[in-house]
């Protein structure tokens, strides 16, 4: 059996707040990263703020969120983060997000590889029925990556985003357990 959390190029590990916070805080100073990651207004965070947030999120008494650091297999370097939040245990529905913080590594398949590992975790370890995500129309690179992992567009909230002076849609995507089993198993 292969390691659940290891992909071809990255592995998912715990966030080590002590060491990782400084790098993650630097990512948030790249406003484009923030805007691709979240629809709230971009803002900067100090290393201390990120450290406190990461420590809180990694606490075992938060059983409904799973935060991971994405590390390159080649040199164990922190390249991004990914998380899965359970929206509903009774319906088996989880919500995921992936961000590659190192700009030089965008478009090289790290996010896709990390998400494939996260889906394996979602379907074989958490036994979810479906996995959901939201993505912004102005982020076609992410949409392509999600489609590669088996996600389908399930609809779009028209003009939900006000970004760089115009309105954009917010897209909702999902992959069902049976679709994942038939494609990647």
């Amino acid at each position, binding site marked *: 059996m292969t390691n659940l959390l290891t992909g071809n190029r990255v592995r998912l590990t715990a966030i080590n707040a002590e060491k990782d916070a400084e790098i993650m805080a630097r990512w948030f100073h790249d406003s484009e990263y923030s805007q691709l990651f979240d629809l709230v207004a971009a803002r900067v965070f100090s290393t201390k703020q990120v450290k406190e947030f990461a420590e809180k999120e990694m606490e075992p008494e938060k059983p409904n969120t799973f935060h991971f650091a994405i590390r390159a297999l080649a040199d164990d370097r922190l390249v991004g983060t990914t998380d899965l939040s359970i929206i509903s245990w009774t*319906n088996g529905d989880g919500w995921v997000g992936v961000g590659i913080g190192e700009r030089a590594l965008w478009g090289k398949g790290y996010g896709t590889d990390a998400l494939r590992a996260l889906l394996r975790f979602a379907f074989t370890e958490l036994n979810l029925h479906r996995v959901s995500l939201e993505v912004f129309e102005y982020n076609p690179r992410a949409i392509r990556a999600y489609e590669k992992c088996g996600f389908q567009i399930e609809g779009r909230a*028209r003009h939900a985003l006000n970004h760089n002076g115009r309105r954009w849609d917010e897209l909702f995507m999902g992959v069902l357990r049976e679709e994942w089993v038939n494609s990647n198993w």
Partner: protein
Amino acid sequence: MHTQLFEGELIRLGALDAERDAEIESKWTHDPEFARALSSEPVRPLSPNQIKKKYDEMIKNERQYHFAIRARDDDRMIGFIRISGIEWTNGIAWLSFGIGDAADRGKGFAREALRLALAYAFGELNLYRLSAIAPEYNERARHILERAGFALEVRRRQAIARDGKRWDALAYGMLRDEWVNGETR
């Protein structure tokens, strides 16, 4: 200019009165049909005291506006309507509503409350768009939303499990441009 934002012909929108209303809302949470129509979460009866605590939290939340829907004739609370999750930079929010007692449904109360809430959201809060979710099986809510001018935008496949069957979670949207002030359509 409309100066009476909270007065309808059949109902009015009012503040919560925890002393009177908690008991009524507690009864609603004991009705599986109501709870299931509203949400994909497991049905969970709440005591008046638990409801009061929920009210306290709601009042503190600056990202939402909650209204009791009150019958004009005797002022009793017959339902609620809420604008929540407001995201000011994008001008977006969620709308939810419910009529608690089955005997009060189908009388146009929700329709009128929705008309007032839309006027409040678009004309007073100056939001750009509203989203609303409905389980696929809640045909009454879907009809009310569609009649008010909401468009079906998202179909999260098989996101809800009830009684051994799977249902889609639907999301609707309305833009300010699509809102016709004062018209019930």
